[in-house]
């Protein structure tokens, strides 16, 4: 997927006029990753087609949504905090206790964007799961964001967003003006391109799936379809972590909601084991 130059310049010009934020050449990945949820909501994953339609209609609400998508809500580390607390306080201790001396803990970070989520998971579990036993498989539809995620290199502005300073000094090295994720953490994470509407990814079965702030952009039938595909690669008794505004309730009854502290996780019913 490569954004056409005129699509990019249209969006860059729109954002500059409305927000004064400059999207220089090379930021095509940002436009693609931020607009993908909007395009999905409009029924396509073709960003160029989405932008063409937007240009033709020039609907004020759509233009506003595009500007907002590109100017707010940067990907941050440990986004929402609660899922990571739930992971260390409840999910992983239970999984490890149930599998003494067993194989690796496999986690799928779906729609991982530029990698902050999978690396945050790796940092969270670095002291809890013995080295080599943590396998995080991170996927996204967009090749450009995956390339950035794989590089594991972040700007000063990016490491300021929600990353505790103790994690910064422990898990990152300063490279020029950027910060790079240290090798032990990178060794725990693999990246691959994947569309949630295709067959589930390799690397499973997974003990835990992070699928956060993705379902909200889909209609009910598509949510159900995605959840069915996800459960095919989750171990019975495995966990699904969704965004704060998302649930499986009323969509897929094979998941049971478990309340942990202020948050919820969804456990795949063992009954379903087939």
């Amino acid at each position, binding site marked *: 997927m490569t954004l056409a130059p005129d699509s990019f310049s249209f969006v860059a010009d729109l954002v500059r006029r409305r927000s004064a934020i400059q999207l220089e050449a090379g930021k095509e990945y940002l436009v693609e990753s931020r607009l993908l949820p909007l395009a999905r909501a409009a029924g396509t994953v073709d960003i160029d087609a989405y932008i063409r339609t937007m240009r033709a209609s020039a609907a004020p609400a759509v233009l506003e949504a595009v500007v907002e998508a590109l100017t707010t809500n940067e990907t941050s580390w440990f986004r929402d905090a609660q899922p990571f607390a739930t992971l260390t306080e409840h999910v992983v201790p239970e999984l490890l206790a149930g599998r003494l001396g067993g194989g690796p803990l496999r986690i799928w970070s779906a729609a991982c964007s530029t990698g902050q989520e999978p690396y945050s998971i790796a940092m969270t579990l670095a002291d809890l799961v013995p080295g080599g036993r943590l396998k995080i498989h991170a996927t996204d539809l967009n090749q450009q964001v995956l390339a950035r995620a794989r590089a594991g290199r972040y700007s000063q502005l990016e490491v300021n967003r929600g990353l505790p300073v103790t994690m910064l000094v422990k898990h990152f090295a300063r490279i020029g003006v950027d910060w790079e994720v240290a090798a032990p953490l990178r060794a725990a994470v693999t990246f691959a391109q994947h569309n949630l509407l295709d067959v589930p990814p390799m690397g499973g079965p997974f003990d835990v799936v992070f699928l956060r702030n993705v379902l909200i952009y889909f209609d009910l039938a598509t949510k159900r379809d995605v959840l069915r595909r996800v459960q095919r690669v989750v171990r019975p008794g495995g966990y699904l972590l969704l965004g*704060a505004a998302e649930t499986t309730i009323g969509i897929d009854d094979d998941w049971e909601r478990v309340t942990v502290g202020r948050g919820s996780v969804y456990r795949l019913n063992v009954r379903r084991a087939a």
Partner: protein
Amino acid sequence: MRALVIDDSRTMRRIIVGVLRSLGFDTLEAGDGREALDVLESGIPVDLACIDWNMPVMNGLEFVLAVRENRAWRGLTLMMVTTESEHNQIVRALAAGAHEYVIKPFTPDAIRDKLQLLGLVELEESA
């Protein structure tokens, strides 16, 4: 919650004060570490200090060390807000007793994120 913003640049103080006020903090300002200690010594309760590193009279690191030596100020949360961005400088500040560290330049969201980590701002879950 009350925050003390310590920076020798008036412009930078104004920016940080603006962010903190939008998050519901009352704010006080000091132009260097010595002025900031004067504020603390006056007995005004302060919950958070946002501290620049390079300042005249008393720099931010010296201020952090001075705060750490006084048991009465143990409840004060210390957050460096500075252009000092070398790995070893950050480690020095943490070793001295700083709790968090924001590297300039920053966005308002970066300050909010860090204050959420520190439990000084309510976590607001994003959709």
